[in-house]
């Protein structure tokens, strides 16, 4: 304080005023702090474990959706068009369906991953809650 007053009285301010710089950098810092804990968007799928649900009851009631290499969708072995899928799923999961709306899914290895996700997405859009991958 004293030094500054002395400087002032001695003549013009010789130090650079860093207050605006401090303001800018602190607000940028806060901005970065806020956006850093980010979020990844994912789709979850369960994997069958040896000796768990796959063998018995669970699979019997869950519809099995297959995507073939040619791009045809099979629901429980029956060829289904993409447009028919909502109706088909509604058959399996009538309104008021109590248990988890679960679907088992198998895809051909030749199909691009993009198309697999697109079909899984379609299932989710139509109310499927869980997808098991076989």
């Amino acid at each position: 304080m004293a030094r500054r007053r002395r400087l002032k009285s001695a003549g013009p301010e010789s130090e650079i005023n860093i207050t605006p710089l401090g303001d800018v950098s602190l607000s940028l810092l806060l901005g970065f702090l806020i956006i850093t804990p980010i979020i990844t968007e994912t789709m979850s799928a369960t994997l069958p474990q040896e000796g768990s649900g796959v063998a018995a009851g669970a699979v019997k009631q869950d519809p099995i959706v297959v995507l073939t290499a040619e791009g045809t969708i099979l629901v429980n072995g029956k060829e289904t068009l993409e447009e028919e899928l909502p109706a088909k799923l509604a058959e399996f999961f009538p309104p008021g369906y109590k248990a988890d709306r679960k679907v088992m899914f198998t895809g051909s290895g030749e199909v691009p991953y993009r198309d697999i996700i697109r079909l899984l997405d379609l299932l989710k859009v139509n109310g499927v809650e869980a997808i098991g991958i076989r």
Partner: protein
Amino acid sequence: MPDITPIVNVALVLLIVFMVVTPMIREGIEVETPEAEVVEQLSEAEQNVVLAVQADGTMYVNLKPVKSHTLESELALAYRGHEGKPVVIKGAQNLPYKDILTLMDICKGIGAPAVDLVARKLK
């Protein structure tokens, strides 16, 4: 007037650190993931093991590049302490599904009950 030079120094250093680190942790390994309408938001804070595969087949466990023959051991090592949690698979959209299936098999092999497939939210 208090001397604010030290606080500005600290703030600038922190700022630079965050500017450098943010793009790295934000994207993780850069992968062109498929798009989907229905996605769940997974907070980075959960710190699940991330298995990334780029379109050219380069694989990463968390941020570490791995070869296919060391993948299983590296993944098992990274998965230690995350038992029961899903493994996050970040696959490039152009990969054939069998590559992803192989990864899912490995995840199953190390005991992961489920996988989370990373997708971009469709705009």
